[in-house]
């Protein structure tokens, strides 16, 4: 298993060799961002901003305004909080080609605590005009996403975790369409919509439900903004209920985006699984996710509750 952030480095290493306009910036974060190899192999295309996230994003925007294809790599917690205004003004408002890579996102820093968690970044960055928000699920999808983003000139935020993650899409043939949800499993009783590394739990839960005779559709909504509205509407139209699953708080997250679309088109019950509106308990990432039911069991329990209601 490898981490999604390592895949990002691998893709950029390959791309930078052929394109000198690719520039990577870090904020004393080349180690945590898995960018040490990039810094060593492409020193002329690597910029160290120091522990200065505001400056990191401003420099990135200045470089991009001169035609550079910029990847700013920093822990998601600091990147999306400390430099929020630079992202709003310098990147989103000026609309420059800066890809913000938030590493060790969500609660993947585990016991390091709330200072290091980024559980509101979907809401924060998604609220900015023109900013796209991606939470890839696994290494294969991360590679597809990065290769696609290398081809466009628009800003984006990509949040990945810290730890190695299992391959959700095996065999090297990853179904991927930029800005469109990936259907992991078809079904019409209920739909499970997940983003980020929790898509794996969603699929396992979906398979178990199928084994129990429940036809569960599983959608990997790796692109939360622009969200695949048609996929959500289709799920609402064809299924009796929807479960959402995310490593994020309720406000402005995947669940609230899905609920807004469902309410406006084909109302059906939406049961959202998310992190609490409080600092999370101390523990490793998996311990914390389990504690709050953001796991296979949590999805199964939600499915049981929902299906009783809609029968």
């Amino acid at each position: 298993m490898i981490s999604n952030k390592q895949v990002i480095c691998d893709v950029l290493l390959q791309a930078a060799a052929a394109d000198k306009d690719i520039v990577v910036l870090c904020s004393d974060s080349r180690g945590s961002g898995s960018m040490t190899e990039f810094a060593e192999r492409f020193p002329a295309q690597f910029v160290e901003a120091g522990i200065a996230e505001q400056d990191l994003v401003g420099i990135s925007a200045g470089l991009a305004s001169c035609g550079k294809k910029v990847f700013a790599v920093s822990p998601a917690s600091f990147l999306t909080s400390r430099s929020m205004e630079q992202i709003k003004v310098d990147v989103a408002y000026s609309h420059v080609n800066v890809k913000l890579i938030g590493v060790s996102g969500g609660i993947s820093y585990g016991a390091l605590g709330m200072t290091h968690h980024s559980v509101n970044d979907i809401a924060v960055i998604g609220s900015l005009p023109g900013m796209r928000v991606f939470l890839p699920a696994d290494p294969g999808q991360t590679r597809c996403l990065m290769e696609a983003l290398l081809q466009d000139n628009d800003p984006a935020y990509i949040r990945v975790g810290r730890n190695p993650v299992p391959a959700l899409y095996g065999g090297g043939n990853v179904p991927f369409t930029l800005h469109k949800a990936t259907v992991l499993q078809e079904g019409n009783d209920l739909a499970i919509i997940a983003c980020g590394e929790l898509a794996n739990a969603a699929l396992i839960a979906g398979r178990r439900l199928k084994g129990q005779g429940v036809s569960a559709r599983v959608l990997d909504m790796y692109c939360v903004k622009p969200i695949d509205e048609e996929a959500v509407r289709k799920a609402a139209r064809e299924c009796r209920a929807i479960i959402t699953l995310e490593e994020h708080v309720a406000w402005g997250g995947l669940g609230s985006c899905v609920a807004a679309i469902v309410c406006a088109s084909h109302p059906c019950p939406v049961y959202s699984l998310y992190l609490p509106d409080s600092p999370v308990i101390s523990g490793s990432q998996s311990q914390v996710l389990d504690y709050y039911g953001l796991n296979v069991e949590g999805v199964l329990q939600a499915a049981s509750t929902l299906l009783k209601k809609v029968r």
Partner: protein
Amino acid sequence: MVFMSEKNPEIRSMERMANHIRQVVLDMIYYAKSGHIGGDFSEMELLTALYFKFLHFRPADTENPDRDRFVLSKGHCVEALYAILAEKGCFPKQDLKSCGSIGTPFIGHPNRVIPGVEMNTGSLGHGLSLGCGMALAARMDQRPYHTYVLMGDGELDEGSVWEAAMFAAHNRLDNLTAIVDCNGLQISGPTEKVLSPGNLPVRWNAIGWHVVELVHGNDMCAVCAAFEEALEENGKPTVILAHTMKGAGCPSIENRVEWHHRVPSQQEYELMKAELEEGASRL
């Protein structure tokens, strides 16, 4: 100080231009009922010298990759920039009349949909980082352009300015010039009283910048000399600490904090117009 009779025609011409732009800005703000006239006037000689002597950029080719870059980090003083870009021919002068009207692109802070405006600014403390990126891109691509960033002295309250200052010095960005419009006043009062910046030359110098103290920041001769010194320096970024006067050019508003963003009444407008015309007659 250089006496009038000693001035070369180029300096005299730029002084006339600065006076003319002040009159345009006064009209823009009076009719739009919005703007930051005090800072527009304090930065006027700095902007005029840049755009009419030092900045290598062609109004008909504002996307040329080798153009010099200018970032107005004190974005609220945008009227002077808009008026100068119109004068340079980046867009028709009559477009300025849309200032203050609904849907105009000429909003109260720099808007890069307008030809000649490099980046959207307005939140203070952003411009120097942007300038660092532009200067770094020039070095990476071995392009000859120079990057200028104009900040206010109140803006130096922002911590992000100092992040960028450290970065520029650390990377020896000698193709970057920062200019600080030290008019000594910010919206709540004297800069020294709001948040004392300490000894600015010492601070910039300690980080690793070449410091040019421009004692008379509204004197065109002195301004040009400072820019020439900035271009000569090699191996360090340069900061020009330009000591200016808020509202410079109109004695009735000079050095008065309320003119940070006050809109003149008809009576005040007529007085300021007369002051500027009187100033023009001396040039």
